[in-house]
């Protein structure tokens, strides 16, 4: 109770910007506040991901290690790397005290109140890693002066990260452990900013072994560390100084990475299970797109294909009988057969992804811009993989937004791009919460985050004109009628029964436009940015 009264005092003092004995108390107030909110959401809707993690708790607890990647009683088999499995194993020992029944593998879809409480609390508590990482990131900001607390970049960054809409919705309602994982990522980035590269590399290797989706940004790490850390010096104009190559650093980095992988995969290699593990980690999933199209290039590609086929039939250029069956009336199916445009294979998507990130990688190789350039490249790698990847989940956009927040409080242009990307992609997460009960929550939280980010960034960069041009503002405002149509008007119309997928498709395509736009702008800013630092920070 004294903690609550302290919180009240701190909240009031924070907003009044009164002189405080403890300068950092606002951080803890924000962290505590968001934790309270998360606790309130314990009873909200949770998706099948809840059962996924319960199943993993059960199988890591009840079965020996040799069985972990073979167990298939539940359809939600273990498809994260071994370190995450060990994490679940650790959690399962605490789970015993809440409800032993959840650790029984055959108890499919077991969701007693104690289970829900435990799982939700585990996410909330694991977020402590995220809190720590955010604190470290605040230290990396270039300038942290502000007239009052609300105008300080570190305060704005803390709110943008701790109260991020995507994390709240995906972690604490839908159910995942992204807070914890992004905590590790942000901590790794912070360590690189602080020139503690060995730690940063170690953290990233750990992260890769927790969730392999972060392979999306591994190229950025690889090139950056090679270029800026293994080559200890650059020439005066920023170009590479070949002679400054440090074998020692390369070897140490290699050792760190390899030993992390060894600890993680070692037991399974020893058991000869590596192929099985890899097949679980990289399942050859059917379909270019997920059931709900992530707002990437392929969503636009699909809609273009549909449009062409409709037009083609209309203008008698195509024979309707020759088209694939579901193309005219089928909506969001996993195996989307393209009728006019060529079909896309996984290899094609890989090639496109690589092509999309190569210029960025080349840029930081050629003229690195220190930690900031690395961060920008990282965001582009994440975004490029999102845009062109195979079977991408809309949640993957978080990988671009969270690191971009760091850039947004530092530069005007990045703030504008961040606003575009964050509002659009947060809106694209709406279909994840499709229940009526959660509708007010997602609208309130979305408005909360959007208003805060708009107002605070506008105040931060008030000199120099508007952050968003009229076209961008119109696009973002267009989300409001889109939401009204998709969630309020459309379900009441007669088309709801015949074309139930239409609102999802609309959302997907509309957001894809915004995401693509942000991607292009980000690329332009990377390629045109001049070296503000004469020498790289690594010495």
């Amino acid at each position: 109770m004294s903690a609550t009264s302290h919180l009240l005092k701190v909240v009031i003092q924070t907003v009044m910007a009164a002189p405080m004995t403890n300068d950092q108390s606002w951080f803890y107030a924000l962290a505590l506040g968001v934790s309270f909110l998360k606790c309130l959401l314990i009873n909200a809707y949770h998706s099948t991901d809840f059962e996924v993690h319960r199943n993993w708790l059960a199988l890591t607890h009840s079965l020996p290690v040799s069985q972990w990647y073979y167990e298939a009683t539940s359809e939600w088999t273990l498809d994260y790397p071994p370190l995450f499995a060990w994490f679940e194993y650790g959690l399962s020992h605490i789970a015993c005290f809440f409800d032993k029944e959840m650790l029984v593998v055959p108890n499919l879809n077991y969701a007693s109140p104690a289970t829900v409480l435990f799982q939700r609390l585990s996410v909330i508590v694991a977020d402590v890693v995220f809190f720590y990482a955010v604190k470290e990131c605040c230290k990396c900001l270039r300038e942290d002066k502000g007239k009052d607390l609300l105008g300080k970049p570190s305060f704005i960054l803390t709110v943008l990260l701790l109260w991020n809409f995507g994390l709240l919705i995906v972690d604490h309602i839908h159910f995942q452990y992204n807070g914890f994982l992004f905590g590790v990522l942000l901590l790794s980035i912070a360590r690189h900013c602080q020139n503690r590269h060995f730690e940063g590399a170690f953290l990233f290797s750990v992260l890769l072994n927790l969730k392999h989706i972060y392979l999306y940004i591994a190229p950025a790490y690889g090139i950056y560390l090679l270029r800026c850390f293994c080559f200890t010096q650059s020439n005066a104009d920023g170009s590479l100084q070949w002679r400054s190559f440090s074998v020692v650093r390369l070897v140490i980095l290699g050792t760190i990475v390899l030993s992390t992988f060894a600890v993680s995969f070692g037991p399974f290699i020893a058991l000869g299970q590596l192929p099985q593990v890899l097949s679980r980690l990289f399942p050859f999933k059917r379909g270019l797109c997920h059931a709900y199209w992530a707002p990437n290039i392929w969503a636009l590609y699909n809609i273009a294909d549909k449009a062409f086929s409709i037009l083609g039939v209309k203008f008698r250029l195509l024979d309707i009988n020759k088209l694939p069956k579901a193309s005219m009336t089928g909506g969001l199916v996993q195996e989307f057969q393209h009728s006019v445009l060529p079909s896309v294979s996984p290899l094609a998507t890989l090639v496109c992804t690589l092509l999309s990130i190569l210029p960025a990688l080349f840029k930081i190789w050629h003229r690195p811009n220190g930690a900031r350039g690395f961060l920008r490249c990282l965001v582009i790698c994440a975004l490029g993989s999102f845009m062109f990847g195979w079977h991408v989940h809309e949640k993957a956009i978080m990988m671009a937004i969270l690191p971009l927040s760091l850039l947004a409080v530092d530069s005007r242009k990045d703030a504008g791009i961040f606003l575009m990307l964050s509002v659009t992609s947060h809106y694209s997460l709406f279909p994840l919460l499709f229940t009526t009960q959660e509708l007010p929550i997602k609208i309130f939280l979305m408005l909360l985050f959007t208003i805060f980010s708009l107002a605070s960034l506008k105040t931060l960069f008030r000199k120099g004109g508007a952050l968003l041009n009229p076209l961008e503002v119109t696009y973002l405002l267009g989300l409001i009628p889109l939401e009204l149509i998709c969630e309020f008007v459309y379900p009441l119309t007669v088309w709801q029964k015949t074309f139930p997928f239409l609102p999802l498709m609309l959302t997907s395509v509309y957001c894809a436009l915004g995401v693509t736009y942000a991607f292009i702008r980000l690329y332009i800013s990377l390629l045109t940015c001049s070296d503000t630092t004469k020498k790289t920070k690594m010495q």
Partner: protein
Amino acid sequence: MENWSLFSLCVLLGLTSRWAVSFHSYSGAGKPPMFGDYEAQRHWQEVTYNLPVHEWYFNTTNNDLNYWGLDYPPLTAYHSLVCAYVAKLLNPEWVELHASRGYESHSHKLFMRATVLFTDILIYIPAVLLYCFYFCDGSSKQKVATALCILLYPGLILIDYGHFQYNSVSLGLALWGILGLGLGWDLFGSLAFTLALNYKQMELYHSLPFFCYLLGKCIKQGLIGRGFFQLAKISLTVLVTFALCWMPFLSDPKQPLQVLHRLFPFGRGLFEDKVANTWCSLNVLIKIKTLLSRETQLFLSFALTLLFILPSSLKLLSKPNLWQFKLALVNSSLAFFLFSFQVHEKSILLAAFMLPLLVKDGLLLPYVVTSLAFLFLSLYLLSHLTRTNEPLFWYFPFLVISVATFVWLEPPAKFPDLFPVLVSILSFLHFLGFIIYFNLVQLMEPQRKKSQKKTN
């Protein structure tokens, strides 16, 4: 950051916590045959929609008063009627006469919660925002902080969105009344407060300060001339409002009497359950409930309430300014809570609600301490409501530990009610302390900064 954005963030935070609390269980969920306050509200929709007005407050074959009979003034009934019309549109089963008793479903819960949110947004939240904007001293940041504290006040959120009630309507209307008086719009203020009174009779707790303030103001303006004219206008407004609200019940003299009988059930005894007021606490030592006759109990409670309310009211009468008015509101509601008849623990909302209005430099500390006390009380409410381990617990994770001690720890067999009683006695002592403290503040008027004084 601009003001509008800060205020909208406060509102959004308030709305989010409200709706998130509403995910949890409501009073009487899954507990036939009587269920709880949620079923009471649903039942009133059923009664008001299906039965003619003159049957609402009477015991008839169609209207069994023992099953959640209407015991709030007419405005609540009208509100239920409006909700019933909407319910009928969405799903007629919800208000089917007799057949809908104990109706529980996920969509119905959403509907009921939505009605609370709707009235909250319509009445309570604008009042809070306007109050903080116009009547809080200090920088805009302080105003926003006050708004945030009021909007996040857990008592109201838990009762309205958890347990299930519509306190935000009556409290909101009362706040509009205070706003009106503060802006000098006495007629509007009186109208709003009269409506609040006609929504929940608990607002009587605040009625004496309103009366004394307006009367004092009129007297100050001179009882011959402007003051008298003003008094007449106010009285007319109040009477007309009452008449309009009670119009359907004025045709037959039996009607208003029956309504009053339902509103003030003197037959029910000095107190029910565990309440943090004098009688309940006293009962632990001396069994006054059984010792004294009902008439004596009534007289005693009336006398003591009057005794504790008189100093504050007289002071307000002599010095009708806004500061005195607010303090009088606190003192009056505390006095009623502590000493009056048939008080429910939820009535403390009325006293607690006023306190955030007093967040100025000097009173920050008591506010923080009060919050502790009210948290303590809401703890008690939680333990009271969560005997079946409902997830309403999760609102205060830290406090869960303390509540856990109360709920899981076995009290000694001789005193099975030990913990709830301890909680209510401790809270009572806090409130007793507060009523003395605030009376002292109001009566003695310690030196305050000139800028804080608001005179009319």
